[in-house]
């Protein structure tokens, strides 16, 4: 108890040097170490600056190219309307278009298409007479049914 009171009444400014120590000659070397640290840091900053100065023209050139590209792109975007967007069709419009095309196919053009393009069918057709083919086509209910079953 008395000891504790004594600690609190220690002469000011002396503690904690009495119990906390430093390596020998620590304060003799500290200023030199600090100046070395400062010089090292300044050297690093100088090197960073010199690298920046070295690549500055290239950076400026790259930046101006990017700016030029952006300006050109922006100019084209404003002057030329976006055709793709205008030409875009909805799915239902595409189906309607295909359907109308399907109805425009007459029997002769269908025969032509099958005869000219479908190679395996061509062999079969060669074995058939013209009358047999016409009879077959007449026996089916519609051109749609033929297209659906054959293709």
């Amino acid at each position, binding site marked *: *108890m008395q000891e504790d009171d004594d600690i*609190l009444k220690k002469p000011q400014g002396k503690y*904690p040097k009495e119990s*906390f120590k430093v390596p020998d000659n620590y304060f003799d070397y*500290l200023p030199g170490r*600090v100046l070395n640290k400062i010089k090292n840091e300044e050297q690093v900053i100088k090197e960073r600056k010199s690298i920046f100065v070295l690549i500055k023209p290239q950076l400026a050139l790259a930046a101006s190219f990017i700016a030029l590209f952006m300006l050109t792109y922006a100019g084209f975007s404003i002057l030329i309307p976006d055709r793709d967007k205008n030409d875009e069709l909805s799915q239902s419009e595409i189906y309607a278009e295909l359907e109308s095309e399907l109805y425009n196919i007459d029997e002769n053009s269908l025969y032509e298409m099958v005869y000219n393009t479908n190679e395996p069918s061509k062999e079969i057709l060669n074995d058939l007479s013209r009358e047999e083919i016409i009879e077959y086509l007449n026996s089916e209910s519609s051109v749609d049914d033929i297209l659906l079953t054959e293709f």
Partner: protein
Amino acid sequence: MSSESKSYSDNELVALFQEGRAEYAFNMIVLKYQERLYWHIRKIVISHDDADDVVQNTLLKAWKGLELFRSDAQLYTWLYRIATNEALTFLNSKKKRIFIPIFSEEHDLSQVLESDPYFQGDEAEKKFQKVLLKLPEKQRLVFNMKYFDDMKYEDIAEVLNTSVGALKASYHHAVKKIEKYLTHD
């Protein structure tokens, strides 16, 4: 060397630094304040190795800031402020890096005190130091600066950017807590 530094006032050293004799003036400033700054930092971070890192960072920051330092402020309170901030920042970053969250900062610093080869105090002094570590951060700072460094409240207020009234209350609470811990433990 230190007698050479005594021949310059703080304002003269700052003027010398800003007028182009930076290295010379800075060396004088370091010689003049290195011990006070070191011990201030050591009391906060406890270990010598940590105090060594922090004092170097403090002086590095001072070097960077001296060019713009205005003489209407006091050099030594400005240096103390940098040192305090650096020490607290160091403790916070160390806490995030190493310390296990279930332990308090007091526990961690007590461990540092136990393991520091440059602490050579007897049991009573170790106990006193551990009691100081129980104090809240601000009270510990105020107590250190008032009790050990015998700083004026006005100067401590400048360092900690707080009012003299608040500091007096902090110091009073710190002393009461220390007395209580020492008599009850």
